[in-house]
């Protein structure tokens, strides 16, 4: 029972975060400054989520991240993901 209540609590909190930004800005006309902030914000979210990978204590993960960054420069999603996974798996075998 406590488990399901916790899950429902989590789900409500999460859905609220999904609705909040839309409900707050739905009718607003943004000024140039707010527009600049909202233009940068999506990238800020993505880079912050993966930040821990840039300071991984395992050298093989840092090397694999470097390889992934190079691959992502030109290659499409599927190839980049494949190279990322294969390079980490390979480096773990080697190191």
């Amino acid at each position, binding site marked *: 029972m406590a488990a399901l209540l916790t899950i429902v609590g989590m789900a409500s909190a999460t859905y609220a*975060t999904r609705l909040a930004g839309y409900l707050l800005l*739905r009718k607003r006309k943004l000024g140039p400054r707010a527009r600049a902030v909202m233009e940068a914000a999506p990238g800020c979210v993505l*880079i912050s989520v*993966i930040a821990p990978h840039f300071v991984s204590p395992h050298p093989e993960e840092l090397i694999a991240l470097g390889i992934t960054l190079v691959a992502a420069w030109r290659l499409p999603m599927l190839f980049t993901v494949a190279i990322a996974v294969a390079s*980490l798996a390979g480096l773990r075998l080697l190191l």
Partner: protein
Amino acid sequence: MTHPYARSEILRGARDALPVMFAVAPYAMVLGAQASQVGLSLVEVGAMTGLNFAGGSEFAAIKLWAAVPPMLTIVLITLLINSRHIVMGAALAPYLQHLPKRKVIPALFFMADEGWAISYADTLRRSSVQQQTAFSWPYYWGACLPFYPVWVGFALIGAAIGPALGNIEAYGFAMAFPAVFIVLLRGMWKGPRLACSWLISLLVAILVYLTVPGAWFVFAGVIAGMLFTYLRAMES
């Protein structure tokens, strides 16, 4: 019932989402396996992934799980980790103004990082070639919805086979997520000015990750990048 244009847009979204499934599916299996190890039943794993549908917060909840889970702590941490959704929804909001609220509200339930980023990057691409409606509603559904059955389904598989899974993290899947996010970032690239804000986010997120325990680093990184952009926009 579905308009041929809508169908082709749904498929276009799903096609762009497909390669990302190779990152999401193993991650969901790891979550399921960890959840069953700390005592969640299959029903509970299904309920958590199906009702909450936000991976990062689910991993955090599993780490804190106990016979009587600390409900308030878990809910507050979920709120903190998922506060980034507020920014994600806000970024999408200007493109959703032509849609009725009753259609958008259920659609936002399925707004997870990957589907949102795919759809947002597509919106930027279309607005740069001056399409009348930059945001494609059916594309959003095609890009977001497939993650739902994959996330819930593979978490259940992970929970069911549990220990038989072995250490899936040893295979290199840990790299799949940063790879996905980096490619998605490239899709949002608009020159070095924007990248400056991202760099500030990265540096602050790293600093907070290394010094403050818990899940504050995403929150701090996002706020820092936005604040930096705001202050710079004031100068010019």
